[in-house]
Structures are given as C-alpha cells and as structure tokens.
C-alpha cells in the first residue's frame, strides 16, 4: 500500500471483494484521524425555532458577480446537478445529486440545509480525538451518499480540491448572517418518534405503491430524461446511495421522508407532513429493505461488516423476503 492509498483509503475499493485485510488496514488507519470518512455520523437534533423562525439564506438571484460569485455559482451547480458538473461528476459512482436529500438547493430548513451545517464545522469529536472539517464532511457524503468508490475517479475529491472549495463557498454564502458554532433551528432532519406498533416492511410497501411509485418507479430505479438528467432519483439498486450512507438508517430515512416526501405534499420549511409517523417508518424500512451498492467499509463478509459498522437501526445483514441483505448492487 502506497502513501497515497493511506491518504485516500477509499480510492480503488471499487470491488467490495477486495482482500479484507486491505480494507481493514485502510480503515484502521483512517478511523483514527478522520471519523467523517468512516461514518456518516448521526446529527444531533436541532432546537425548535423561536418566533423569528429559521435562518433566511440570501436569494439565489443575488449571488454577486466576480470571482467569489463564480465560485458560489459553481458550488451551487455542483450541488444540484452533481452528475452534470464538469468536476463534481467524476466523483459520482451512482445516479445521485447532492440536492436529492437536501431539498431546495440545500437551503430548506428540516432538509439538512447547508447553512445549518456551515457554522458547525470544524467539529471536535472526543470519540476519535479528531477535529472534523467541512472538507471531510463533504468527502464523506461523496463516499457514501454518492458512492464515490464506483466513480470515474474511484473515490471522493482530493482534500482542498476546487470542487470542495466551490461547494464551501456556496455553503458559506448561504449562511450569511447566521451565528457560528450553534446548532441552528432547522438543521438536519427533524426526528420522528418511533411508533408504538412494530415497523412493517410490507405495510411500507403499500405506502410506497400508493404514494411514491408514481415518481420513484415500481422498481425504485427513478426516472431519467433522454439526455441522462435526473427527473426522479433512484431509491435502491445500483443508482442509489450505498449501504454506508446515512439514509440507509431507518430512523434517518423516516425523518427525511416525514417532512420532505411525497414531493409537493410535505413541506420541510413549514414542517408539514403528509404521512403519519407509522407510515414514515414503515416506508423508510421498505426502501431500505432492498439491495444497494456495497458498504465501502466491507470487512470480508456481511456478518463482520454488520458487526463492525451496522450497530444502528438498519436492515444490513437482516433477512427480508427470504433474502439476507448486504450483497450490494451495481
């Protein structure tokens, strides 16, 4: 293993069946200094908004002219049209754009807005005794949500690369006037209490057919225009987020879905929901009961990957519809 491999441990781990030793070594090195890359850490809950409401980002029409504005615009485009952006697209190993899970160009409260994230990083985490930077957070999103291991580049963007700079210029611009170092109202997704009834994948399937399939497709593969641009994103299969992404946790997916989906019915900024808590959890479980690209932290077997990385609410290595999940897709 070269020095470069250690710095970018995820590069080249395209095939989950690479020798487990390699993956293990890469990650043990990595985990010490960079937890954002080994884990999409669950965010803490944000406080409720006061009478002044949520932070108001500036209008996208008011991005200034000049080199700073150019960088902001490039970062915005890399965020919403990641698969078309000349630089960002090289790091996308599935069929996602950042904006799929961060609605309204990453500006909507309760949709994990970027203005909510901006003032939180760099963030010290005692657990790994490391200061996590925004740079690393974004690289983590590329690694899991965008499955960078399967991309043309084979891994997330290099630290401090232009696309990361542009994205951060965009986040910075959107946070204008927001306090720094505070967990702002509207940050992250608003947690949905776990319902009293058991979570049911088959009830979730009914919700999905009734309320989601018209856009995301019966087979969860989404819809794309003739020129390849996304209309509706895939939720499972090769085009989806991978088994390491935050969205594969059922509680996180339920929280996203409750106030963001179905598109046009739920309203994140107004915190209006179209589904009951039970429906949100059930459909979140249904979506995450399908194969998707392998966890890039593959430990050599589903069981050992499960044990090491999946001690949260998810269906990795669980048996659903007669199939033990975790084979990967793509």
């Amino acid at each position, binding site marked *: 293993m070269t020095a470069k491999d250690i710095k970018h441990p995820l590069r080249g781990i395209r095939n989950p069946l690479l020798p487990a030793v390699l993956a293990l070594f890469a990650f043990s090195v990595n985990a010490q200094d960079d937890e954002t890359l080994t884990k999409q850490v669950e965010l803490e809950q944000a406080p409720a908004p006061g009478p002044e409401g949520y932070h108001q980002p500036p209008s996208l029409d008011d991005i200034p002219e000049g080199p700073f504005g150019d960088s902001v615009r490039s970062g915005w485009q890399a965020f919403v049209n990641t698969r078309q952006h000349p630089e960002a697209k090289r790091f996308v190993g599935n069929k996602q754009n950042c904006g799929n899970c961060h609605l309204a160009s990453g*500006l909507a409260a309760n949709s994990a807005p970027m203005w909510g994230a901006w003032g939180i990083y760099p963030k010290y985490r005692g657990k790994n005794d490391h200061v996590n930077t925004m740079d690393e957070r974004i690289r983590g999103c590329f690694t899991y949500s965008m499955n960078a291991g399967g991309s043309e580049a084979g891994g997330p963007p290099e630290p401090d690369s232009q696309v990361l700079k542009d994205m951060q210029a965009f986040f910075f611009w959107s946070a204008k006037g927001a306090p720094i170092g505070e967990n702002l109202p509207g940050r992250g997704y608003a947690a949905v209490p776990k319902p009293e009834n058991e979570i049911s994948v088959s009830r979730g399937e009914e919700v999905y057919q009734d309320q989601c399939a018209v856009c995301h497709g019966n087979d969860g593969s989404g819809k794309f225009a003739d020129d390849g641009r996304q209309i509706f994103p895939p939720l499972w299969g090769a085009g989806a987020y991978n088994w390491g992404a935050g969205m594969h946790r059922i509680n996180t997916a339920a929280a996203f879905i409750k106030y963001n989906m179905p598109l046009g019915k739920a309203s994140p900024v107004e915190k209006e929901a179209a589904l009951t808590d039970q429906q949100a959890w059930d459909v979140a479980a249904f979506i995450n009961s399908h194969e998707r690209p392998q966890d890039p932290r593959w430990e050599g077997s589903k069981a050992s990957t499960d044990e090491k990385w999946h001690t949260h609410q998810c269906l990795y290595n669980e048996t659903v519809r007669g199939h033990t999940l975790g084979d990967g897709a793509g």
Partner: protein
Amino acid sequence: MRGRYRFTCGLFGFSFLILLMPTISAANEAGKKLALQGGEGVQPCSSCHGAQGGGNAAAGWPRLAGLNADYMVQQLNALANGTRSNPLMAPIASSLSEQQRKDVAEYFANLTPPTTPPGGDVDQKILKRGKVLAQRGDWQQGIPACTSCHGLKGQGVGAAFPSIAGQPAMYLQNQIKAWQSGSRQNDPNGLMASVAKRLSDEDSQAVTAWFASLPAEPSKSDQ
C-alpha cells in the same frame, strides 16, 4: 447491385406497411374523423381545440396536439365521471365510448404542436417571478419547482405529469383555480391539488404566464 438491394428493401418495406396499415390507420382514421368531423351527437373537437389541436388561447381552451395519449384518456375518463368538471367538455367526454377516447387521444398525441407559444402581453417582472417559481419553486410556501414534476422544460413526464409548456395561460390558471375550489380532483394522490392550494393568485398568474411563453414540446410517453 445497389438498385436491386433497394428494390427488395422497398418491396419488404411496402409489404410491411400493408401488414401494419389496418391497425394503425383504423385507430387514426376513427380518431381523425372524431377530431375533425365529430360523431353522433359529438361536435368536432377541432371546433374548440383548433384544426391542428393547437388550442384557443383567447378562450382558454387547451392545446391537445402532442399531449401524452394516456394522460388524455385519463382526463376524458375524469371529465366523464365527474372527478373533473367543466360545463363545455364534460358532456362531450361522457358521450365518447372507451374506444373513441383512445382513438382520439392517439390522434392528438401524434400531432405536432404549434412552434410559436401562445404567450400573452405580460410584464417582464411578472415573467421573471414566474420563471423562478417554475424552476426553483417557493419553499417558504412549500412549493417545489414545477419543473421537478412537469419536466425540466415543462414538457411533461409520462402519463402522470402533463406537458404545461405552450398551453394558454388562461387555461393553466383555470386548472389551478379548479384544484383550489375542488372542482378538479382527479390528480394522482392529490399531488397537484396540494401544490395548487399553496399558490397565491399573483404567483399563479406569474407562473402560468411563464409556461405560456415557452414553446410546447411533445411529451414522449417514456420521457
């Protein structure tokens, strides 16, 4: 050599055409006849929707040319069963048989829509607001970009999300009002009703003016 090749090819193509002709033309002929001449107790569609199916902007009657055929059948069914109401169109839809609805929808779906948009005399400022709503929505009000469902150019997505580009502004606005008042309730899972109810009158005017200023593009059923 070349000549003979072309000859066999032509012969093959010709017999192929003959084979297909009865099925294609039966539907199209029946549809075309209904559209241009009407049927028993049914006025010709063209008398309101235009000879080429281009609609009538001044009256607020929709363009049918190039719309998705399945979408049009769904609308004719809805107009007939009352989940969508309109005094002019509902009686006509009711008097069409199931087969006639399919035939005529197929006919209009295959027509090329007019290349000039219906447009209208609208202030640039209003159009600008309309464009923002169309392409980015207004999330403070819970309104996603119209294009996220109706396609990047408003050209429609499959049978569920109709083409709204190049439709008369008045027609589009009437539909938004119909959802707000509850006289149109046929949309899948109330998706459009939910969006329409969040639109103010000013925003509805602005965004419909914007789509009326765009050229129609045929909505391919598998876009």
